[in-house]
């Protein structure tokens, strides 16, 4: 049985990819993921804030209070000695590449068209096989128009594409007025893949301390419905590869995603919950299902249930809404 797939120009032995997550902060986990059978690993992200604000802060605290008091004109060894760029991150990519034989995809996370983009090049130089560009923008400005925001996405992508030769995937949120149009424009702007979808961390309230607390919510299986729909709609209509992420927890989830048109399926929450080894369970589950259902290859099933290929394409559209409502009310009446 041929589980192989192609993603970002990389020939992968199967469609399971480990998504960017804290798991990849430990080099040993790269080896464990490879052992568990995943075909590629997205390295944890280098954040724009690390490159800009953190570096600025590092500089600020290196020079804070200096040249003020005659006996302590500085408090640290000469700052020029410090390379305040994200060296540690790049070193980590180098180590990851050394540790495993499967492709390692670097990840750059930001929201503005700024100096941080040049780190795409550094990630490439550190040996990443491809780059996932996670554009994580949350508009709070009442005057920012959707057009401005969309153009910003495109500008970032174009800047990065100019900087590197390795393939670039764009990880997106679903919050666009016309998502297919956005996907098309990104495709035209040179995205080699779209990763659907990014899940925003949603803040919570600590009632006791009256504080806003950052909150990481792991996905549940229902979350896969959103990317499933959009991958189904986009399949066959844009050049870029499609990667499914969010809510893929079991073999069946991955199979569904492939059927609607995903080139790869990304695993995150489920590995965080159940451990790295769970990837091998999913993989063998997929193989078993495919055997039972006499599929010969992933290629064969890819896109088979997409809007373009399925028997009832309207199910992915508004008509679907009515059916859902009906089924819901009839269930309740029964």
């Amino acid at each position, binding site marked *: 049985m041929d589980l192989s797939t192609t993603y970002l120009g990389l020939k992968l032995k199967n469609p399971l990819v480990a998504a960017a997550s804290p798991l990849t902060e430990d080099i040993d986990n790269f080896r464990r993921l490879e052992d568990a059978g995943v075909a590629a690993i997205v390295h944890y992200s280098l954040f724009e804030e690390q*490159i*800009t604000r953190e*570096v*600025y802060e*590092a*500089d*600020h*605290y*290196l*020079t*804070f*209070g*200096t*040249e*003020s*008091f*005659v*006996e*302590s*004109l*500085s*408090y*640290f*060894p*000469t*700052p*020029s*000695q*410090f*390379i*305040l*760029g994200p*060296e*540690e991150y790049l*070193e*980590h990519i180098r180590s990851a590449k050394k540790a495993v034989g499967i492709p390692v995809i670097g990840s750059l996370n930001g929201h503005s068209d*700024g*100096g*941080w983009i*040049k780190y795409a090049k550094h990630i490439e130089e550190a040996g990443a096989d491809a780059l996932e560009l996670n554009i994580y923008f949350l508009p709070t400005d009442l005057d920012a128009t959707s057009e401005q925001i969309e153009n910003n996405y495109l500008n970032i992508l174009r800047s990065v594409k100019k900087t590197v030769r390795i393939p670039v995937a764009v990880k997106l949120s679903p919050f666009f007025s016309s998502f297919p149009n956005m996907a098309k424009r990104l495709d035209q702007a040179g995205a080699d893949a779209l990763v659907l979808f990014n899940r925003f961390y949603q803040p919570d309230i600590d009632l006791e301390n*009256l*504080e806003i607390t950052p909150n990481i919510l792991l996905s549940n299986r229902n979350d896969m419905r959103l990317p499933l729909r959009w991958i189904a709609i986009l399949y066959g209509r844009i050049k870029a590869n499609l990667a499914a992420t969010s809510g893929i927890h079991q073999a069946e989830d991955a199979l569904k995603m492939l059927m609607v048109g995903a080139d790869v399926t990304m695993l995150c929450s489920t590995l965080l919950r159940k451990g790295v080894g769970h990837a091998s369970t999913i993989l063998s589950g997929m193989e078993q299902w495919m055997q039972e259902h006499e599929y010969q290859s992933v290629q064969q099933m890819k896109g088979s249930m997409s809007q373009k290929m399925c028997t009832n394409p309207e199910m992915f559209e508004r008509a679907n809404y009515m059916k859902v409502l009906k089924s819901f009310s009839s269930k309740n009446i029964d």
Partner: protein
Amino acid sequence: MKRKQVTIDGNEAAAYVAYRVNEVIAIYPITPSSTMGELADEWMSAGVKNIYGTIPLIQEMQSEGGAAGAVHGALQTGALTTTFTASQGLLLMIPNMYKIAGELTPTVFHVAARSLAAQALSIFGDHSDVMAARQTGFALFSSASVQEAMDFALMAQAATLESRIPFLHFFDGFRTSHEISKIEQLTSEDIAAFLNEELIAAHRDRALSPDHPVIRGTTQDPDVYFQARESTNHFYQACPEIVQKYMNKFYQLTGRQYKLFDYFGSPDAERIIVIMGSGAETCQDTVDKLMQEGEKVGLIKVRLYRPFSVQHFIKTLPKTTKVIAVLDRTKEPGSTGEPLYLDIVNAVFENGTDSGFKNMPRIIGGRYGLSSKEFTPAMVKGIYDELAKSKPKNHFTIGIRDDLTHTSLDYDEDYTIESPFGVRAIFHGLGSDGTVSANKSSIKIIGENTPNYAQGYFVYDSKKAGSVTISHLRFGPKPIHSSYLISRANFVGCHSFGFIEKYNVLKELVEGGVFLLNTPYEYTKTWDMLPREVQQEIIDKKIQFYVIDGYAVAREAGIGSKINTIMQTCFFAISGVLEKEEAITAIKTSIEKTYRNKGEEVVKMNFSAVDRALEHLHKIKVPHSATSSVKKSQTVSDKSPQFVQKVTAKIISRCGDQIPVSALPFDGTYPVGTAKWEKRDIALEIPQWDADICIQCGKCVAVCPHAVIRTKIYEPEHLKKSPATFKSIQAKDKEFEGLSYTIQVAPEDCTGCGICVDICPVKNKAETRLKAINMVTQQPIKKDEIQNWDFFLNIPELDRGRVKHTTIRGVQVLEPLFEFSGACAGCGETPYIKLMTQLFGDRALVANATGCSSIYGGNLPTTPWTKNKEGRGPAWANSLFEDNAEFGLGFRLSLDKQAEYAKELVKELESAIGSDLATQLLAAEQKDEADIFEQRIRVEALKQKLQHTNSPRAKQLLSVADMLVKKSVWIIGGDGWAYDIGFGGLDHVLSTGRNVNILVLDTEVYSNTGGQASKATSRGAVAKFAASGKPTAKKDLARMAMMYEHVYVASVALGAKDEHTLKVFLEAERYEGPSLIIAYSHCIAHGINMTTAMQDQKGAVLSGYWPLFRYNPDLVQEGKNPLILDSGAPKIPLEEYTHKQNRFKILAKTQPQLSKELLRLAQQDVYKRWEFYENLAAQEKKPENPNITKQETGR
């Protein structure tokens, strides 16, 4: 080979050579020489090699004494070895210096010469230290400028190897060590070619080796010691010629000719000044000018002071000499003259008529420039004028007004020789605004981009928070010899508007000069905001007046309050020192160089600031007349004491140089309670109390580092005449029912650190970003709050007997006797000191080790130590750095002895005193404050009874009667003292069992000297002297002290558990033996946000990095384990604590693997220490054997 022109300071110049010619360097921080060790450590860390192709080994030691010992050992075993030091550090090296010289061991010590602590400590430059080492047998070699510091470092190395006499190469602290100057840098090839490899090999051959063993360091008896001591004479005799030989060789190499005694002046000079050090540069400058005017004057610069070559000196002195003034930059009280003077007298008169003079010249000696006191051409001229008199004054002083013994010479202070060419610019800045950094960059830009010479010298004030800096920059086509501050500037920049209300910033600006002012006002309105006197001076001097709102530009560019690049751009644009476009390109290149490693965003923001600066720069059309109604502010209140008005105020207003000798205390004794008169008014924002939601917990009061937030609980009747905006609510505690409660902020004393707001536990339910205390802009509420503060101070203090001393809530109303210190905004040390004074201040004596706490505690003009309304408060003294524990023990011994004597006298005089009173006086245990209060009443009664008695014994009792009241001895210092240099003494004091309280303010680095690693520094933290992260674990001082079993030991962190800190202070003081409190003190040197630093303390405790505990030996008698752990097992990974602090973070940025490994080990350190303490605390204890007495346990 073309040599590089570099703009560096004297320390770097000397260290550059020292690093390249040595293999082992033992270092220890001391101002102003620390930079040399820091650079050496940084170079080592960066892998810079010496001329032998290897990286020197740098070792930090625990003291200068230790450094000298290590140097001695390294020399004995054949390595080329050096050290850097100054002042007290050099004194600590003296014993080893005798040994090194006695054994004829080649080495060069590089010294940034500095004053010695006498009536007061001073970090500034003079020759007191090197003169105290002149008898050791070391050669004393004096360089006078930055270029010379590099040149002499090399010549000294060559000469020591050949002569075998060790060299002390010195240059003036600050004036040379910190002056930035454009010089020609020697290449490694120059250095290598200059040294004789055979001599290096000979040094190695003499080394101790088991392959050809010898012994050194014998003990000699009367029969041979004397002869052996004389056996080295010929080495000393040969040394001067060897030095001159290398000076000549140096000339061949570089074209710079030096002589043992360099002469400048007319060949037939009659009046001669003899001088060494940077003052010689000033003299040379002045002699040039006087010669142009036809004066027959000359100058001899002494280069090699020891061994002193009489022959060379006499040869140098013009035969036409009639009178000589020998200038010493030191003071030797009680001598017949200072050392250089006596040497010159001896040289001239020993040779007598053989010297070739027709008439023996008259020789006078004088003192100048102590503690970096300015030494100007006007003073030099004054001395030459004195020499022209028929009876010139001998043993004179110059530069001060001695109205006591009348040693000082009068001179024309307005005399100047500043050249009409070049640019002379003075910049008044705030420490925090980056002015000095910008000026250093300007010097480099001009030095490296133009053929001009450049010089920069920087003057700082005595405060760590809100400090003022003054930069003096000279640029010109000729080499700059002006080793004095600028007296005639053609450009003055004032980077803070507030200065013009306080100081005369235009004093040095010449007519037609340029004045650039950073204004917070719109440029059109700025003129009207100037004080009238300033307007008038601008008009009178026809000053070209420019303004810019630098802070607005900085904000727009996103660089916070760093206006450095903005003001620098304006300076270049107006001064014309470079073409505008060229200057901007150069500034941008410099920005890129400085910030490129810190990210492109930082570079971009600074570029943006440069581009915006010129758009916001405006030239003001100066009106014909002054119209302002704004007045300059008064330095101190009229209500302040006489001394404050007469002396302190002058120092505050930068007029300390004008204070005459008679106005200063003879013995270094100064009044307390003076900080309150120095209204520094530095906070842009201050805290404002929200009385409605306040829960009166007192936490804000407890953490305030500057004691500017105070609480009072009082009878409502005191509110009768309260100002309209004065806030008051009912006290919430039951025991204070019916009383009023107020939290008041001192608006002009606050530094605006915000630590109070961060600690406040209350949130406003309607607007959760607000707390019960919030930072607000100071300006709009300042006037009201000044009035409120004054009113508040006059509300009577609550009776201390009514206050619960065991809770932070209670303690908040106790009056602090330590207030408004000049410590850094948000300082982590001062809250502990303040707490101590609140609890025990009225009966405390404090021995304070040199360091941050001695600086913010005792650096003139003012002191934060103060007294209560009864006139009682902590008595404070600083002896030295290394001896503080012993110094404090001395207090205890003295107090105990006098108390014992007083008790003996009470017994003896029982009948006169009355049996009841005598018995009560003797029986009083004074375990708590109430008891002490009672004892004070008894002592007063005793004094009343004895005052009319004429018996000598009664009089003796009267003189020691106060000793019957318990005194609390506090020994306070930082970790550099307690863990390193003072550890031996501290250990001994602990061992004595005496009742002292030792408070270690542990910042985990030498904070005061700029963050060098100490043994308290944690593994993985980056510090100076540990540029690659400290590889070893923090020393466990607490554990060491516990092993004595009779020492009360505690570890506290106020920000983590304030009630615990309070409990520890109370227990430690109550304990009748030695107590050691190790207090976590966050510090600016940690690279942290000082506003939220108390949260770091929480992290420290939660992660187990800083466990809280008490080891109380008294518990043993109750059959309990003396160790109580007051914090839990590590709950969060160490990384959660370290990742917020630059000291740990930056290693990850430079050496990620090493950082990871060190932090892994540091995490293990945490677990291991916790396990050890947990086990110790879990052990069962049996009651002590009652047969063992207290004495036997060391108590």
